[in-house]
């Protein structure tokens, strides 16, 4: 889906959207925890406050059947005393509750063995500004979501189809401070529209996610899914085997997304990453370049990690060669290098991970990929993907909501869904061409920036009944 002009109605009716607390108020709560900790004589204290307002309109059978809203705030306190640390989280902000959480954190921390690798908390950091809070998303009302859903359902009814999906919107803020003077804050909005159009026993699907709801066009997504559902009827059964496939960006996202933790230095040190023993080697094809870039214009997320360290842009794979990993402060120290700002909140056993993958794209549109394919399959999305082999990174899963046979450069017929058992490493060595990278939304991985791909010899092992 291409972004559209910001022309959405500003008319506000129905249940009003609520608003986040002012940042200074959240800082006041954090400061009160630091004050209590100081009074208690705690050597090091970290306070992480998350506030979230989310709403979701859910529809099925051409009508809204679930419609929800939530507003919550959590205060997470980590204390560190003599090489021992623990975290306690509460959603109660009155002083007695914060004091009790602080005491619980101290109690948990004190009843464990000393960890000689625990680092002092980081001091004040400088952050690159990101602007990811959009008033239009924050102000979206239940009525506005309901009206957009109604239009999608009306389209389905006109076409003799049945629509199901969601339209969600939300806003959140995060404040992270510690007793060494670190202070970080971040706000964002996010909206998602996802729709499945069912025509008889066939179905197709479209989904978009953005920080600014005006970048999402529910009517266009509904039209795309509706037109594809028409083509998805009467699927033919093909024998499983190896096929050239054109993976739409959602399918690429949900497969490549399973690689993200393999780039963690801790995973490699623990010898559970598929990249163990493969650093500096040409693991992927020369047309594959992957970075982690929290500052990419189509990414969302805070510019700091779980300890408040600024996220850095990291080149992970350069023209097929694994170049770098990401590091937390602890894993960086163990490896004799510098943190890249990718650590999880402490304490944890996983270390870090890149959460803003950007896979470089190419210039071949999906239409051109189809036109250049003598025989292959177009894959709309994948489903229920799980890891079969962690070192060869063999993943299994199903195609879903639109699998089409391509013959002589054209979509020839709908095809019954396949199960695949495919090494992602092998897949990324077999990429023949790439489309433009975009912010993709799937169901297995978080939204990231990936291109559609044409891949040869993709392995389908079995066929299902529809």
């Amino acid at each position, binding site marked *: 889906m291409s972004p559209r002009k910001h022309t959405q109605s500003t008319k506000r009716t*129905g*249940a*009003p959207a*609520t608003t986040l607390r002012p940042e200074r108020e959240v800082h006041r709560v954090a400061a009160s925890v630091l004050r209590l900790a100081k009074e208690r004589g705690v050597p090091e204290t970290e306070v992480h406050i998350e506030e979230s307002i989310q709403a*979701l*309109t859910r529809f*099925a*059978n*051409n*009508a*809204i*059947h*679930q*419609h*929800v*809203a*939530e*507003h*919550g*705030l959590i205060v997470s306190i980590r204390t560190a005393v003599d090489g021992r640390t*623990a975290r*306690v*989280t*509460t*959603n*109660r902000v009155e002083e007695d509750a914060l004091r009790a959480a602080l005491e619980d*954190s101290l109690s*948990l921390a004190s009843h*464990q*063995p000393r*960890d000689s690798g625990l680092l002092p908390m980081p001091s004040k950091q400088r952050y690159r500004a990101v602007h990811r809070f959009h008033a239009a998303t924050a102000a979206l009302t*239940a009525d506005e*979501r*309901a*009206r957009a859903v109604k239009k999608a359902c009306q389209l389905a009814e006109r076409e003799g189809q049945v629509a*199901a*999906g969601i339209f969600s919107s939300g806003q959140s803020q995060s404040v992270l401070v510690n007793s060494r003077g670190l202070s970080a804050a971040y706000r964002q909005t996010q909206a998602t529209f*996802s729709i*499945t159009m*069912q025509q008889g026993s066939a179905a197709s699907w479209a989904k978009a996610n953005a920080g600014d709801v005006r970048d999402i066009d529910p009517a266009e997504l509904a039209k795309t899914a509706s037109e594809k559902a028409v083509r998805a009827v009467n699927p033919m059964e093909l024998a499983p085997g190896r096929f050239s496939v054109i993976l739409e960006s959602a399918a690429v996202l949900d497969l490549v997304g399973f690689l993200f933790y393999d780039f963690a230095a801790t995973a490699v040190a623990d*010898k*559970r990453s598929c990249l*163990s023993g493969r650093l500096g080697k040409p693991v992927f094809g020369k047309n594959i370049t992957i970075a982690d870039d929290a500052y990419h214009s189509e990414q969302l997320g805070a510019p700091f990690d779980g300890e408040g360290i600024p996220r850095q842009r990291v080149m992970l794979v350069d023209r097929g060669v694994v170049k770098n990993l990401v590091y937390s402060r602890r894993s960086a120290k163990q490896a004799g290098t510098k943190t890249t700002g990718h650590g999880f909140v402490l*304490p944890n*056993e996983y270390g870090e991970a890149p959460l803003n993958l950007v896979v470089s794209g190419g210039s071949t549109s999906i239409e051109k990929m189809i036109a250049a394919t003598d025989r292959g399959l177009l894959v709309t999305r994948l*489903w*229920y*993907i*799980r890891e*079969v*082999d962690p*070192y060869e990174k063999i993943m299994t899963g*199903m195609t879903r909501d639109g699998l089409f046979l391509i013959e002589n450069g054209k979509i020839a017929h709908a095809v019954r869904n396949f*199960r695949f*058992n495919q090494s992602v490493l092998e897949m990324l060595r077999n990429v023949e061409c790439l489309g433009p990278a975009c912010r993709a939304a799937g*169901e297995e991985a978080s939204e990231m920036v990936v291109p559609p791909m044409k891949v040869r010899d993709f392995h389908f*092992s*079995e*066929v299902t009944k*529809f």
Partner: protein
Amino acid sequence: MWDYCGHSLEVARLRGASYADVRVMHLRQRDLTTKSGRVGTLGQSESIGLGIRVVAHGAWGFASTDKLTREGVAACAAQAVAIAKSSALAKKEDVQMVPEGTYVDSWQGPCLKDPFEIPLETQLDLLLAADAAMRSVRGVTLSETDMQFRKIDTWFASSSGSKIHQRRFISGCGMVATVFKDDAIQKRSYPNSFGGQHVLGGYELIESLDLLQHAPRVGEEAIALHSAPQCPEKAGTLILGGSQLGLQIHESIGHPIELDRVLGQEANFAGTSFLTLDKLHHLRYASPIVNVVADARIAHGPGLGSFAYDDEGVPAQCIDVIKDGEFHGYLSSRETAHLIGLPRSGGTMRTEGWNRLPMIRMTNVSILPGPWTLENLIADTEDGILMDTNRSWSIDDRRYQFQFSTEIAWEIKGGKKTRMLKNPSYSGITTEFWNSCDAICNADHWVLWGTPNCGKGQPMQVMGTGHGAAPARFRNVRFGTAFSKQ
């Protein structure tokens, strides 16, 4: 809490709700993990808040808040009613619910030893000792353990007059040894993979697992898998261990029988179901020896799906799902029951927390035990493969075609368990698979397994479900396709 419940219900009524129910929930959780000799996660959390579900203008609305004041819950109730009125902009027909009784009750699930009262040192000492015992096996490259405890208080009230308090303790524990060698990764877990065993109960679960006795074996098997031959690609006789059969039930029986899936309400995300309404009482789901129930009653056992009342105030029940092989019943709610002619909900509406809407979820979906001992079942098998402990699971969005892989397998030849096999997997079509079941082990082998991580819904909710299972045998099953190169 009852004051907040009552006040929010009254505000909802005054704002125009024709029905409302409210849940105040207080959730407490402790998470402990170790990795290769040091503490990993060490954390505790609590969350308390209120969620109210209403019908207004014939449509649903739900809102939740952590502001537990009279003003806070009143605003939340008003928001829920306003949302319901927005929902009515795109409704087809008014919400209908089957009738249900009014209950005033208080119930607490089983818990002999409150896990939050057990000293943290005791818990960590056990985990670190098990962690060390796995690493005492030379070649183990990663050892991990975990414990998780939850205490959940729910105050439910409805505009029909019900007022129900329930308290549930949940405990879980597990360990895993991983071995990286010769460009391959193998792992073994105990008592189950992906977090171990989880039950409705207290620290007595942890004490019953005897982690230290099993830890060296877990490490040794992870080592041995590297030199074991590959599971062959062929069709043959399969014996599944109890925990794997529990997950097989979860994916290929538990999810297909959820009536919201059947009715298309999950079509966009979790999927639908091959069990269309015409199949009720007309489908031979399984062979005649297979009997499956969805039993939320505590009499079934301390499962993650055990409770006294579901989250719309319906008492726990036992539903026949498969009776002598025939498909017999769905999981239903007050809103969906009438669509299949039921006079009453099956009592399966459950919510993850105060900020989530109750939805149809599995309770304890269990296969009833048969007459076999495992020893006799192996002795009765001329040529087969015994697979145990899940490694991966996947099934299509209508729940026909599945593929599972397990951590370990053993070949059975001439009625004896022989050599170990690595990378085992099997696949099939749900009804074909269940109709091939020809033996189920007896009650001595039957364990009520906990699946703590079942995801469903938008926004996503993670729910614990129970699955009683004993080892069972299946004929003519396809093996090895997960690693097929064809």
